[in-house]
Every structure is written in structure tokens, then in C-alpha cells.
């Protein structure tokens, strides 16, 4: 059992938990994730570690309210207990001296990239952070991220329909303006990972994506999270979750993420029914 030290809504559909997990806080590294089991009937849900505090013995996670598990997690109040948290899992993100690094984050990925940004900066990189969101109201942790990066840019989806720049323009302009830019790291929804990988393909920009496939155990036991990268099958939970975006078999990745779609809808409907019954 792990205590929720803080449970809050950050923006309309994104939530933030600070959780007591001293052992995980002592070993966490940027790019790793935890498995959270909300309650006795819950799934094992993989979530990126957004931050940790060794002294307080806490970790932070940020997630979008989407399915049954995230719906349950979103309802956790300060002082309540989660069934379990296991981690840190996965390989840490590669943090080298890359020169200029562009981090592209959307949705929960803004928070997930935060520890990468901080450590990349500490290693002497010049860090440009591009936050993608629906509009200003969906942007969170702006000031927190700004403290650890050199440049903070935003791209609001509402702009795309107006006169604003598109994601491709922004990235390619950055590349032209900054020849030292050698690496792009993307975290967020699958579509963002795919889109950025397509934008930088054939540009010479190394693009690392933080994959988020369906997982069960997260320790290499089951192989649910199989992804094909450069023609070879990997288990994202132990070999990743960070992979070369230009090598990912995206069609397979998108298909595999949809494996349980109809059951996920059923589970959510079932939870909503339970909740409405308990409220009556």
C-alpha cells in the first residue's frame, strides 16, 4: 500500500499524484516508469515517473483521465492509499552530451520529460522544450519546466487551424536556425510520437520516442509490450521504453495499442455504472 500525499487536477483532463514510495524515489532515473495498481481489482498501469524526492521518499506521476484505471487514479484524494506501486522500471533515458536537444512533450509527456530536461541541462546540454497542448488552459507545469530549460516554446492545437505555425514548421525551423541541434526526444500520445518521427525522418535529426504500449507485468515476464524496431522485436518494458522513432514499426504499434479497445470501453462503462449506483 502506498499513500497518496497529494492528488490534484492540473488541467481539465490531466491529473497529478504525489505518492509515498521511498525505495523507488531512491533509485528512480529520468525516463523510467512505475506500475501502479489503484485498488484490489485494479490493473497494473504503467506511468512515467515525473519527478521524485529522495529525502521525502515520494514520487510523482501525471496522467490523462482516459480509461478505467486512470479514472480510478484521478479520484484518489490526498491521504488515501493505492493498492501498490512497483518500480522504477525500464531503462533510463540516454542522457549524454548532445549539444542542443529538443524535447517535444504533449499531454502527460510534459511531466514525463521534466526529469530528462533537468538532467540534460545538468549535463551541459542546451535544452529547448516544446510543449504541445490543446490551448493555454491545457498547459501545466510551465514555470516548473522553464526553470530547467533554456528555451520554452508552446504549440497550441487551436493555432494549427488558424495562422499559427505547424509542428513540422516549428521543428524544421529550429533545425535550420540551430545547426547544433542533434537530438529530439518525444513523450506523449502515440500520435505525437509518430508525427514527430515522420517530421524528422530524413533530416538527420536523431529522434527518440518514449513508447507506451500495453503492458502487464513490466518486468519482461509476459511480452505484451512487444514492439518492432528496425526489424527486431523488443520488449518495451525492459529494453525501452525509449526507442529510435525512425525504426519503430508504427502500424504494428498503433494496432497493438488497440488490442483491448472494446473491453476497455466495457470496463469503463461498468465503472461508471458502479459509481452512479454508489451515488444514488
Amino acid at each position, binding site marked *: 500500500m502506498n499513500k497518496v500525499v497529494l492528488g490534484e487536477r492540473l488541467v481539465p483532463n490531466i491529473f497529478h499524484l504525489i505518492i509515498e514510495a521511498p*525505495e*523507488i524515489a*531512491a*533509485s528512480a532515473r529520468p525516463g523510467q516508469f512505475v*506500475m501502479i*495498481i489503484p485498488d484490489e*481489482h*485494479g*490493473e*497494473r498501469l504503467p506511468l512515467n515517473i515525473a519527478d521524485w524526492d529522495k529525502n521525502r521518499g515520494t514520487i510523482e506521476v501525471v496522467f490523462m483521465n482516459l480509461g*478505467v*484505471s486512470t479514472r*480510478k487514479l484521478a479520484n484518489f484524494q490526498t491521504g488515501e492509499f493505492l*493498492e*501498490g*506501486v*512497483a*518500480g*522504477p*522500471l525500464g531503462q533510463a533515458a540516454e542522457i549524454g552530451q548532445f549539444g542542443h536537444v529538443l524535447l517535444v512533450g504533449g499531454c502527460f509527456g510534459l511531466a514525463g520529460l521534466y526529469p530528462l530536461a533537468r538532467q540534460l541541462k545538468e549535463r551541459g546540454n542546451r535544452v529547448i522544450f516544446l510543449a504541445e497542448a490543446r490551448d493555454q488552459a491545457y498547459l501545466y507545469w510551465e514555470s516548473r519546466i522553464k526553470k530547467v530549460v533554456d528555451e520554452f516554446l508552446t504549440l497550441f492545437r487551436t493555432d494549427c487551424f488558424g495562422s499559427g505555425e505547424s509542428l513540422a514548421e516549428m521543428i524544421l525551423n529550429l533545425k535550420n536556425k540551430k545547426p547544433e541541434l542533434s537530438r529530439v526526444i518525444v513523450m506523449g500520445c502515440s500520435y505525437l510520437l509518430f508525427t514527430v518521427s515522420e517530421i524528422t525522418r530524413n533530416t538527420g535529426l536523431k529522434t527518440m520516442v518514449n513508447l507506451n504500449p500495453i503492458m*502487464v*507485468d513490466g*518486468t*519482461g*515476464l*509476459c*511480452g*505484451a509490450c*512487444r514492439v*518492432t524496431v528496425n526489424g527486431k*522485436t523488443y520488449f518495451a518494458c*525492459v529494453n525501452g521504453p525509449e526507442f529510435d522513432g525512425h525504426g519503430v514499426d508504427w*502500424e*504494428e504499434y498503433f*494496432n*497493438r495499442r*488497440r*488490442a*483491448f479497445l472494446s*473491453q*476497455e470501453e*466495457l*470496463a469503463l462503462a*461498468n465503472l461508471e455504472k458502479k459509481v452512479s449506483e454508489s451515488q444514488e
Partner: protein
Amino acid sequence: MGKIELFEPGLAERLFTEREKPWRQKLRQEMSVQQRLKIPRHKMPEQPPQQRIRNFLEVNLGYSLEMAKKEAQRCLDCGNPGCVAGCPVAIDIPTFIKYIEAGELEKALDKIRQTNGLPAICGRVCPQEIQCEKNCNLVKAGREPVAIGHLERFVADYLSSPPLLSIRPERVNSGREKIAVVGSGPAGLTVAADLARLGYQVTVFEALNIPGGVLAYGIPEFRLPRQILRSEINFIKSLGVEIKTNFIVGKTASLSDLRNLGYLAFFLGTGAGLPSFMNIPGENLLGVYSANEYLTRVNLMKAFRFPDFDTPAPLGRKVAVIGGGNVAMDAVRTTLRLGAEEAVIYYRRSRAEMPARAEEIKHAEEEGVIFHFLTVPVRYSGGEKGRLKSMVLRRLALGEPDASGRPRPIPLPGSEFEVEVDLAVVAIGQSPNPLLIKQLEGLKLGRWGKVEVDQKTMSSSLPGVYAGGDSVRGGATVILAMGDGRRAARAIDKFLRKC
């Protein structure tokens, strides 16, 4: 008796002493050998197949007290008990059976527990037909062997809250030495129980959210009800063992972190949690699962109670399970219970080479599983949205024995055929989970990444680090893992006494 001595010095002598006790002599005289030989083996009462494929309740219902006593009378209490030599943990089988005959069930359980911490589990999942029961002297007399497994299960179940009786720490003063056991499967639980009895402080670190290892994620409830597993684990906890779940040694903390916390010896019971795939085209289609994933969803995460539990299981109408071991049987029988219309086992050798327990094969057949021998998949094909639609199989013939001693399957050219299938479960084996063992510098690994150990002491190439079960064997049985645990416990005790 040389084989027995391997497990426990002085065992043969102790067996003899027990046998010569007056109550045993008296019991032997109460019924003649001729009378005993006349009693037929008692069949295990079962749920009828058509009923049980619609539920996840246990298939075997267990003996009644009367049946158990009667079955116990079949044991001749012979002077050269082959059964004990056939048991990887050398349970004093004749003594516990004779206690049943005498109606002394607590003593029977106590006798088993002296060498086996998990009797309710072993009575259910051990392949008795190739171990204890194979060596039963009744077989030589042309009879069916004593149902040792069923009796073991009976005793353990009958006394569901087990009294401790003679199980007391033998070295109470050494309570300060801390031992870390990595993995709470059968090997880890056994080593933990044995060392706790010797007075050590044992912590078991389990990566998953529920203890039991393969007993929790692999073996289905219809073969091993979870309250049985829980009560066996509670018994081990009652010996003073601490179990920490959601703790991944190698991630949450390293082995050297644990050393810094004062742990003096380590046992790696990390299991064979790395599923093998065949690396054939289409294996990543939706609808192709490792048996580990399929069973973990259903057993550990209780997907059979979806949507009351949140984890879903893949559902198939036409199901193919690849493999012929216990894991394949567990998977195929689970698919039937989750509504498969047709469930087929494809195995690359013939029936005679199937490694599954005889009872599992029998149960699968009764439940309507179809067996296709000498066939192997060569590719999967997908339809809409990357979903599995069909598979192409190839026929094989058996050739000369390979390294494992079993005949090597040889592909027959031009024998390919295609079948419609919407769920395929790959149960062709697994190798040791590399997460921890690959990061230990200096730990010698052998073929398939198995930890190399000294067979007698289970000590690895790293001082103070022992290993056993599937991390060493790659995919064996519960009882062999437990045997490893016993040997490791004795060696760890010796190692720490020298420190």
C-alpha cells in the same frame, strides 16, 4: 539409498527408525499384504467436464476422510520405500501415509511439513507419475501405485489451519543474520521456510503484487485455488518470513543495496519469466500471445472476472495453443473456460513425448481439447487492423534423439496447411528472466542464460549468492524448484556458520 542421502545426510537411517516404532509395527500387522493388495486405487472425485469448463473452480474435489484412510491401507509400508527416493524433497512418505491410516492426521501433516513447506500445492501440481508414484513397489506387483499425491493433498486440505507441532526454530540465537530471497515462487518460499526454521531473519522480495511466483501468475485456479496458495504462504509467514511485494531486486534496489542493508546471503529464485517466441512471421499480430501473458492476465490479474476486475483477457473463438507442456495445458483449458468454441493443441512431437502431467492431459481431453501432434506453425496471417486470422502449419516426422534424448522433429516438405484461428497462445517454453541476473557482475551464466550453480549446494559463482528453481533450470517443476531450495538452505546455513 545413495540417492536419498544426496538430499539429507542420515535420512535412510531416520526412515528405518520411524518404521521400527511400535505403532508402525502394530499397524502393519493389522492387515495382511494380501488384503492390502486387493484394495483398488481410489479415483480422485472430479467436477464433471461439461460443468467445469464453465467455471474456474477446482477440477479435483479431493478425497473424503474415509477414502483417504482406505487408500492409505494400500501402502504396504515396505522396507525399501522407492517413493522417498523418487521425491525431490525426500518426504518420509510411508510415515505420513501410515499416520493417515492410523487417523493421526496432524502428525501426518507435521511429518510432510518437515521436508515440504507446500504440501497442499505439491499434492496438486507435482508430476507424481514420474516421481514418487513411479517408484512405488505396488507397481512392481502389477498394481496401480498408492495415490501419494492425492493423500498429500488430502492431509494438507483437511487441516486447513495447520498447527506448528514440532516445527520450531532450531537455532534461536542466530536471529540476527539477515538473508534475502529474490522471488517468492516455490524455490524461494522453500529456502525461506527452511532458513526461518533455522532461526534466520528471512526477507522474500517479490516483483509482482501477489506472492507465489509461477504459483500465482502461471497455474490456473481450477488447478490450484488461490485460498490454498494464500494459506500455504501464510504458514510460511507464520515461521517469521517477511514477504515484500512490488519490490523488484535489480530495479527497486540492487543486490549491493541489500548487502548494505545487512543481508549476508542471497538466494536468486527469479524464475523463468522470459517467454520464448518462435520468431516466425506474424507473431506480433493482435491475437498472438505468450502463455505467460495470457495466464498472467487470467490468474494473477483475475481477468476471468472481468469487468469486475479491470484487466481484460483476450477472447478467442478458434484457439490454437502451441506446445505440449503443463503451461500449454493450462492455457488451452483456460481458453475453453473463457468461451472458446474450438481449442486445439499443436505439438511438434507425438503424444508419448508430451511433457505435461498425465492428469492434465487427461483433463484436457475430457474437456474437449483437440490434439494435433507432429505439427508446428510456420507463420501467422492477419486480417483487418492487424488481427490474427489464420496460421500456416507444417507437419513433422520424428527422427533420431536430440540432445534432450527425445526424438528430433523433422519437417516434412510440402506438408503445409492453413487453419482459421483468432487466438494463438505460444507455450513453447521460457528462459530465466534476465532482469536481475544479467546485471550481476561475475555471475556465471550457462546456456539460455541459466545461472550456473554447484548442484549440491546451489551456490553460484558469486560468494554468498545461491540460486535455484527455474532461474537455474529454465522451466522445470514446482517440486524440483523446492528441492533446490532445500539444498540451498542447508548450504546457506553452513556458509553463515563459517562466517
